[in-house]
């Protein structure tokens, strides 16, 4: 089969996902178009070389609705021949979009494509698209569905992570992100975003709180305790699926969960010929990709199984991976992954993650793939695995190696 290579990765800085966030005034269309325009221009392309764009968005309604990718390529001045597809695999959308682009290349459908995504959470709030069948009692009664925060606390309870454990992880994420920014480790991929008069409006991740310590996090109340224990009482629902637990310890809060932000990212994927033809140097080969479904009540343990599947398909094991990137949806998700995969903390999320910098739902997967690629190059590592936990009990993973 044809090999797929990553030629470039671009991302916007992440703006606070609130009305006082720097990117709040930038439309989802504009933000996407700036990122898509940049990945084209910095590789000396005109745009017509890029045949297809897979673009992830988790709340594809309103201004993010329909097929935002198609509107964005037009807005970015691509020729009309570049097509696009809307991708939604919840939090895995950005990485799924890259995997779709890679699959198109591998299958011979296209020579050069983009996988990416956008989420302007300050403009199109989470849940704006409803919750689909998750509100349907038939499914809720069959699958014991609970909100993600309950699932995260369930993971912490089941695997014995204390409030201190998850807070300590969050403090470290903030430290690593601050250090990474201080040392300019993200520079290669960051595209400063400009406003309508061309002035730079944001050039660094806005959400970070480098001063965060155990004490400041300790002051925060658990975010999911009320909905879990009192109204409507999701804990009892979760315990139907996990009857070996007496109760759920609520350890997660805004400080050790992923932040709500605006952001967009794009990864340029193509075959060997495309690189030769357009004078681009491949930065990494896409070794394998995997998507899995897992138990939907605990919901967020999928990365372990997705990673295992990707490793198996690549004929590798965990020890073959030099660095890991797992979206920091909630601290316990990463703690569980490290434990299950026997990954040392020094090898995963080395430059921090969504707890410090935020999780623009539809874009994050493409962002963390770019982040890990930059880090491989900086530290001269060979292999990396990027993965995300996904709502509804899913996981996605992609293994890349430098060429």
């Amino acid at each position: 089969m044809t090999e797929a290579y990553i030629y470039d990765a671009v991302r916007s800085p992440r703006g606070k996902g609130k009305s006082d966030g720097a990117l709040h005034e930038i439309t989802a269309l504009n933000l996407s178009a700036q990122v898509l325009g940049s990945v084209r221009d910095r590789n000396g392309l005109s745009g017509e070389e890029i045949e297809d764009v897979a673009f992830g968005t988790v709340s594809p309604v309103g201004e993010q609705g329909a097929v935002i990718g198609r509107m964005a390529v037009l807005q970015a001045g691509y020729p009309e021949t570049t097509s696009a597809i809307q991708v939604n695999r919840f939090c895995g959308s950005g990485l799924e979009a890259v995997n779709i682009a890679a699959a198109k290349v591998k299958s011979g459908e296209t020579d050069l494509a983009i996988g990416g995504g956008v989420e302007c959470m300050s403009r199109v709030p989470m849940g704006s698209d409803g919750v689909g069948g998750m509100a349907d009692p038939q499914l809720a009664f069959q699958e014991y569905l609970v909100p993600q925060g309950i699932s995260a606390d369930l993971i912490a309870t089941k695997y014995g992570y204390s409030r201190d454990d998850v807070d300590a992880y969050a403090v470290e994420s903030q430290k690593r992100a601050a250090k990474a920014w201080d040392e300019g480790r993200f520079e290669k991929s960051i595209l400063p975003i400009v406003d309508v008069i061309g002035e730079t409006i944001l050039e660094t991740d806005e959400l970070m709180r480098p001063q965060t310590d155990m004490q400041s996090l300790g002051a925060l109340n658990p975010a999911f305790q009320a909905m879990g224990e009192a109204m409507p009482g999701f804990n009892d629902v979760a315990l139907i699926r996990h009857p070996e637990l007496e109760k759920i310890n609520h350890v997660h809060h805004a400080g050790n969960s992923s932040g709500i932000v605006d952001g967009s990212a794009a990864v340029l994927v193509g075959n060997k010929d495309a690189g030769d033809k357009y004078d681009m140097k491949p930065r990494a080969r896409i070794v394998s990709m995997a998507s899995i479904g897992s138990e939907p009540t605990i919901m967020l343990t999928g990365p372990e199984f997705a990673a295992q599947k990707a490793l198996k398909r690549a004929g590798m094991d965990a020890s073959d991976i030099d660095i890991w990137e797992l979206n920091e949806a909630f601290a316990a998700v990463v703690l569980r992954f490290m434990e299950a995969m026997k990954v040392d903390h020094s090898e995963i999320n080395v430059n921090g993650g969504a707890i410090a910098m935020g999780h623009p739902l539809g874009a994050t997967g493409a962002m963390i793939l770019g982040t890990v690629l930059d880090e491989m190059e900086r530290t001269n590592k060979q292999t990396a695995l990027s993965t995300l936990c996904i709502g509804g009990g899913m996981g996605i993973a992609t293994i890349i190696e430098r060429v």
Partner: protein
Amino acid sequence: MTYKTFTVDIDSDGIALVTIDLPGQSMNVWNGELMAEFPKFVDELISNDDIKGAVITSGKKSGFLAGADLNMLGSSAASTTAEAFEQAFALNSTLRRMETGGNTAKDMLKGGAHAKPVACAINGLALGGGLELALACHYRVCADNPKIQLGLPEVQVGLLPGGGGTQRLPRLIGLQAAGMMIMQGKPTNPAAALAQGIIHEIAPADEIVTKAKEWVKANPKAAAPWDKKGFKFPGGAGSMDPRAVPMYMGAAAIALKQSKGNYPAVKAILSCLYEGSMLPIDTALRVESKYFTQLLSGPVARNMIRTLFVNKQAAEKGAARPEGIPPLELKTVGVLGAGLMGSGITHVTAKGGMNVIVLDRSEEDAQKAVDYTKKILDKRVSRGKMTQEKADAFLARITPTTDYNDLKDVDLIIEAVFENPEVKADVIKKTEAVIGKDVIFASNTSTLPITGLAENSERPDQFIGLHFFSPVEKMPLIEIIPGEKTGDKALAAAFDYNARIRKTPIVVKDVRGFFTNRVFPPYVNEAMLMVTEGIKPALIENAALHLGMPIGPLALTDETTLKLGYDIMQSTKEALGDAYVDNGGEAFLDLMVNQLGRSGRRFGKGFYDYDDNGNRLDLWKGMEEHYPLLEDQPSVEEVKERLLYIQLIATAECYDEEVVSDPQSADLGAIFGWGFAPYTGGPISYIDTVGVDSFVRTADSLAQRHGERFSPPQSFRDMADKGETFYKAA
């Protein structure tokens, strides 16, 4: 036209007054005849130009209409699903036709078509199909009697309101309020219903028909709100409405939390609300009827209707009372002993309108029964649930005494002194010395055989056992225990007394533990055994809750105390001597009670830890040190099966030994005695539902893995071989 189930009187304004009055019935219900006749009236209403509108009321003093005839529903025989749906849809179809006047929704919405106005005059309770009939009327006037119950209680027998209740109510008052009313099944009163918008007007009882007619006369062109252009669901609805979506999810969580998924009706009701709220009313009503069909064809509704409605009612009406004995007039009851049980019995007796003379050794002790009731009444008064006047009258019915002579005029004796044969013998003698020769003596005991106690009586034929449960005012069951020599008059008296205190009675054989205390101890013992095997206590507790038990067996044992279990074990050992067979829990109880002092909640610790106020905290973590946890924990299904089958087997043994003489008593005793999962209809209903052969197979398999205690009685094996059932197939 003339009808049998209702009369139609057309007045000079052309308004037809429909007075529903089922012949030979004390209460109006949707039975076969009314279901057959009412559509004909709707046709007449639509087609007869002389009729300008209608007012529907009831000819029964007992109420407006009490819902569907559950006996009819329980025995409906449709041969195909489609036929079952047509039966289920019949009422919906008729009521909708009345509401639209036979017009299509499309024609109504365009504004051109309208229905002839139909109002209802609700003179008394309107429940289930009765309220649904009212909701399908364009206008609802209710009598100003605060005792009138308006509600949709179908969920309590495993059904949903299938006459449009899940669709019209939320369209009137919003999904949240309607959801709560339908999911809980609790009725409301006219004032609250008016405030919510369920009814339009309250009027004095003798004016409701006039008021209803006035409205009909003033509104010749009628349409339900949802048939008018621009109708909006109050409070929002649909999968994109940010007000509705959290409501759907929250309601599902609450419902799951409470039902553990064991009650299909709860899920079906939620689906009717969810799906129906996204649909036009006609399609929504069809969907409602489909979910209703689904419920009616499953075992849960059938079992719940049979046990919780039909058999419960029959038992409470005294189905097992001997015939031909005139009812006992009960003015005054003598209660012996003012301890916890005596005080509770005093309370329910006074509550039943009888005078109580409660006797104990000292005035101080006797006064405890008065204080017990006073405490309960004070709470009710302070919460506005009872007037001080009524509380005073209630309390005045209780007279404490230390003098046996005060008992000379009582109509019945209930003895509730200390569970000690000698103490009991003493009070029996002293009491019989003063009471009338015909007065029945009932002994409340949970452990002592009645036949033995009756030996102390001069009139053993007038001696009977009544087993109350604690707390008496809350526990719904009463076991009636005839001893060897007990006569029919005593048995009848027990039923006559029970009719006043309104408990669910079952007659049980005079054996150690009677019925409930034969089945319940093996159940909690099984939970204890599992702890000793190294099964996680949380898994045991959750398995029981998920099975549908009201509380985990370990938490419950903490309540009744491990000390009690220990004491019963010791006394059983003493009583049986060499015949005592170890049940495997002896060493465990000894450890918990004697060595660790973890004797139960009252002692501050047991399976759980407790705070200083006795509030339950977490399961005690130290248990693992004594009983290390199994590396491979069993599945929750395995634990559930053990907890369920230990109860089924013990019930089967009682049935086999005729401790209970019929399946009904076993089922009622289990559900109301120790909270056996109500959705099953009781242990015998459960065995019938899975099939006796399947029950025997599972029990044998459990016996192989966990011991002979799971082995079913031979008579059940025989039934399995013959393919017999306990109840007639529904």
